[in-house]
């Protein structure tokens, strides 16, 4: 543990910064994709539903690491598109986890009672107004717990980019390992680093969920350290 010099710690902390960037940018792209595809899957036209479903099945069906290899090695050779490694990583993470997220968005939209939508139609809201002012605000709190799990998966997925030479935590760790010739301390340290980031993310999402539920007049439920989001009990006491 004490063998790590300041410079080696510096490598690891640079990695932490890259991992955080990858997580934030990947989550932003993923959220965008998830909303677009998730909403498209409830579209009136069958062709829109079909294409968005196809996107989801393809990107959910293949392996994130294989997709990443494809973006890094096949795109430049086959199509002549050479992306900066960082952006290639964000692109493949965002597209993969966005496909998983679209299912969360679709499920949450479907869980809003149909009467709400009908009320919007009765009030002569446009489809966009219905989505933005009626359906999404009610679907939003239900999306947060599964989105948190997905965010943790994304954080774990960012470690894959180290295989392709992007300097994240895991990449920093391999450099440190080579410098020290000793693996146990550095891998223990970075596992703890990932765990701390995951913990902070979970706390943040928990706070977001509390706020979103408070906006709807629902009480938050209590859960464990990391616990999976469980469906809200039917007996939850409103607005206390």
């Amino acid at each position, binding site marked *: 543990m004490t063998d790590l010099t300041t410079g080696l710690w510096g490598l690891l902390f640079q990695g932490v910064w890259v991992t955080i960037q990858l997580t934030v940018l990947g989550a932003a792209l993923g959220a965008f994709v998830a909303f677009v595809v998730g909403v498209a899957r409830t579209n009136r036209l069958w062709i829109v539903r079909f294409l968005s479903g196809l996107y989801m*099945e*393809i990107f*959910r*069906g*293949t*392996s*994130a*690491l*294989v*997709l990443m*290899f*494809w973006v890094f*090695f*096949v795109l430049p*050779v*086959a*199509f002549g598109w050479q992306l900066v490694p960082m952006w290639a990583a964000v692109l493949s993470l965002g597209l993969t986890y966005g496909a998983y997220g679209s299912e969360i968005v679709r499920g949450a939209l479907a869980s809003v009672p149909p009467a709400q939508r009908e009320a919007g139609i009765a009030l002569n809201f446009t489809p966009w107004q219905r989505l933005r002012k009626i359906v999404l605000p009610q679907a939003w709190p239900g999306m947060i717990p599964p989105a948190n799990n997905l965010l*943790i998966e994304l*954080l*774990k*997925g*960012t*470690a*894959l980019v*180290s*295989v392709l030479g992007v300097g994240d*935590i*895991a990449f920093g*760790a*391999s450099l440190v*390992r080579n410098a020290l010739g*000793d*693996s*146990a301390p550095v*891998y*223990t340290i*970075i*596992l703890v680093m*990932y*765990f701390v980031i*995951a*913990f902070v993310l979970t706390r943040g999402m928990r706070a977001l969920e509390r706020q979103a539920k408070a906006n709807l007049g629902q009480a938050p439920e209590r859960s*464990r*350290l*990391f616990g*999976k989001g469980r469906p809200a009990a039917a007996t939850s006491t409103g607005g206390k």
Partner: protein
Amino acid sequence: MQWDWSAVADFMPRFWDGVLVTLQALVLGSLIAFALGLVWAIAQRSALKAVRWPVTVITEFVRNTPLLVQLFFLYFVLPEWNITFSALTTGIIGLGLHYSTYTAEVYRAGIDGVPVGQWEACTALNMPRGRTWTAVVLPQAIRRVVPALGNYVIAMLKDSPMIATIGALELLGQARQFSAVTFQPTEPITVVGIAFILIAYPASLLMRALERRLVR
């Protein structure tokens, strides 16, 4: 874009080798995950805090850290402690251990879903603890969670290329080796990517069908 069918044909023998290794990792990894997950789930319901607490900490830690780093840990650190496994064995242990923390959550939900009356009936019949678990609780709990377990097997399939990074020659490992020899990355990597979709999509349809049938 250039697409060379002869490269696909050349890759095919390696492809099938890779399929075998991937399936091997998947089957053995699933067995470890199913067994170990059940151990975690039952230990988390233990009456002893000294059992419950460490198990919760371990499973949360393993679940919230990347599988890739755990694989590196197992592959590089264990030999320093004079425990040496092959790359494939390390990969299987890593996959199984990582996914056991997910299956533990699945079993937990299944066990929580067994009505309290069933436990009480066992107490009333003076059944020993072990028999309560094996004859009454687990058969009901596991039936409900089969589709969820299946979904994690599919997830594990999609994470299995990670064991290529420690040198196990499964599908992606074979594709990498092939493209390193021939300088044709396009065909093998695309073929492997499509192979994953072709396996994962019907499997996920199967799980959806099972879910409709088993979960009532």
